[in-house]
């Protein structure tokens, strides 16, 4: 039992509150939920096998059989789009989980220990900042080979400083608050204070940053697939679909490239809307 009041903010509480108050965020959350559901239930809801080739349907436009048309190999674009959501969401999710964990660890450690530890970790994060994420990914692909693994590792490393810098800043502010000082006076270990009290209180801001990072990671991974370094054909992937569909643009078939492009834009915007709304709300609350 403690005499000190516990300051703890629920991790997902801001999401629920924002969703209730902002229709756009509600729509974004609904869209993301729909995407996740579609990715999870892809085998049940798609009309065609995403890899099924029908050369008689090559570059067909929108038809009842193929609502978003067929690509150059006659594969159903809608089915590939839905299956593509799996790699499209899974990759960025892995990047966000790893970069958030790594960045939070580094940021909080730098803020908590200060001094030399802070200097070394901050410089290390700046060093990673200075290296283009895509270049890092391409180098790793050269070492590990094509596929999702190398880009996810590279992006996780590249995105960690974004989270780390934010975590360090808010952790420094939080560390200076009286309740943290009170815990220290009571003799609680730094580890316990950070894990049980500091982290939960900075989590909403980090969540907001991670939501925004999700969108950026999705774009970067799609770019790598587009360039042939990420997910490889014939696996359905939005970036690879744009690559495969782009030659068809010359023939007037827009959907094979446009549909995955729109999916990327809409998903990135949805994540940005959610992330920025959380950040706005946290900032307003801090001002009060």
């Amino acid at each position, binding site marked *: 039992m403690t005499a000190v009041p516990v300051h703890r903010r629920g991790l997902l509480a801001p999401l629920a509150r924002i969703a209730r108050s902002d229709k*756009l965020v509600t729509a974004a959350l609904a869209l993301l939920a729909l995407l996740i559901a579609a990715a999870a239930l892809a085998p049940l809801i798609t009309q065609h096998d995403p*890899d*099924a*080739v029908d*050369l*008689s349907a*090559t*570059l*067909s*436009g*929108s038809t009842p059989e193929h*609502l*978003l*048309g067929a690509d*150059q*190999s*006659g*594969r159903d674009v809608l089915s590939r789009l839905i299956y593509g959501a799996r790699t499209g969401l899974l990759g960025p999710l892995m990047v966000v989980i790893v970069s958030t964990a790594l960045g939070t660890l580094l940021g909080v450690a730098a803020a908590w220990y200060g001094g030399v530890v802070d200097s070394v970790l901050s410089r290390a994060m700046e060093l990673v900042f200075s290296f283009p994420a895509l270049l890092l990914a391409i180098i790793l692909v050269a070492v590990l080979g*094509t596929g999702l693994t190398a880009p996810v590792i590279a992006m996780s490393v590249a995105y960690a400083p974004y989270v780390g810098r934010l975590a360090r800043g808010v952790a420094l502010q939080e560390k200076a608050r009286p309740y943290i000082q009170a815990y220290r006076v009571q003799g609680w270990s730094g580890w316990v204070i950070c894990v049980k009290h500091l982290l939960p209180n900075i989590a909403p801001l980090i969540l907001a940053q991670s939501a925004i990072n999700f969108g950026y990671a999705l774009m970067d991974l799609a770019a790598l697939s587009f360039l*042939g*370094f990420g997910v*490889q*054909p*014939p696996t359905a992937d939005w970036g*690879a679909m744009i*690559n*495969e569909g*782009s*030659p*068809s*643009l*010359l*023939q*007037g*078939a*827009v*959907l094979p490239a*446009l*549909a995955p*492009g*729109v999916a990327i*834009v*809409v998903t*990135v*915007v*949805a994540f*940005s*809307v959610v992330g*920025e709304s959380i950040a706005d709300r946290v900032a307003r609350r801090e001002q009060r």
Partner: protein
Amino acid sequence: MRTSRFAAAGALLALAVAACGGPPAGTKGAAGAFEITKDTPPAKGPVDTVTWSLYAEPQSLDYAYAFDYPPNTVLANVCEQLMRITPDLKVEPGLATAAEAPDPKRWVYTIRPGVRFHHGSTLTADDVVASMRRHMDPKVGSYWVSVYRNVERIDKTGPMEVTVHLKKPDQLFNEEMGTSAGTIASAASLAKEGYGTPDVGVDCTGPFSLDSWQKGQSITLKKFGGYWDPSLAPKANTIRNVFIPDPAARVNALLAGEVDGGYLLPSSGFPKLRTATSGTLYFGPNTTAVNLIPTDLKGTLGDVKVRKALSMALDRDGIIRAAAGGVATPAKAPGATGAWGIAPEAAKEYYAKLPALTRDVAGAKKLIEEAGATGKKIVMATSTLSPEIGVIANAVQSAGQAIGLQVELKAVAPEAYTALFSDPKAREGIDLVMTIWYDSTPDPLEFYGILTTGDFANYGGYSNPEYDALVDEANAQADPAARAATVARLQEIAVRDVVWIPLYEVPHSMFLNKRLTGAPTGIAQLVFPWGAPLGSAG
């Protein structure tokens, strides 16, 4: 944030609009009709500058490494060979005024007098010997080394005479002297470190000399005033070859008139180029065939029944529609019909006798069952290098699955796909690759010769003593008709044994701005100085 919301709304609107329509009528399903045009009308006058598009920058202009379209398209105007392959695929004297075979194991070349190199020196037998011997030097690592596999030695036998001594009769060797294997550069330039690089350049005898090479941008050629052949005196002062790797950008540059022309155009651009007001799309004679190469005849594809079944299951018409925009004809043999320039009429008869490759999925499935190959795995390479590779790989996977084979597609990085044809290690674990294969000479023996035991390009390791003996027999036949008859027997065996799986043959493509004319349309442009007759249309 507001911007991103607009982006999302805009993207959704674009999707909604696009969903209302597919490609323009007439472009999506029907096979595109095409007509072969051997020539363009002769030029009526000179032009100052011609801008020509290449789909890639050559890695080198050293003729020893000129084994692909971009370097050969440039070098065809700059360097010349002992023999000359003409636009109608005939082999004529080039830098050699005569090629004689006093006995089956010797070729004697008489060197043309009075020919000047771009840097000022005069062509001699020493230049010829130096240029040819280079292919046999392991340190050089010439891509054309296989042409010299039967060569024992090359000697200067007179001030203007060179004799090639062979280990065994080799008729094809003389025809190969019309390709980069027979290119002659000055001995002095070959002695320089970095021959063929942007910094050092080349020194040859062609109608154009190398003016400048701006890395990543262009290679500019200028008219060579001292050119020896008045019939091919250049009509253009300069030819600027620009590198445009993106297919859409290349097609749009041609449509807009930013570049005057280009060879080997992307099939996806044919519909727009056909209706262009800026110029004309031509389809010319070709020696190119698109094939599937079984690269491991010790694996699942080692059984001829399996190869035959896979061939029977393929939807060639559908593949042509999807991969070649309809501009191709289904193939019955792995060697292109256009490569029978030594006996074109007889070739038609030989080809007609080959069994038709009609699609029969049920029959193919039965063959797979007979072979006990149901459920067996085949690994096929695929790549984003060009759209047709992916389309064909997907079609093969679909066909394989329909007959009970498990076809796994292995994605290969674009830059690694080329290595599949040069590095055996790169082919490890891969059973099947798709290739667009062109022959450099008008002799079908060039293609069927590569299926002999141990040949560098015999990727699957096919070995048939009867076949090998026939190749030797054909290579010893000086009479083209007799040689063609022997090659026809080779063709029958190659088709029977399904050594390669033929898909389709494509015409050579060229777009020419309406202000220009005179360039040849066919694949001979890779060795013939196509820029020389190119001039003003009016």
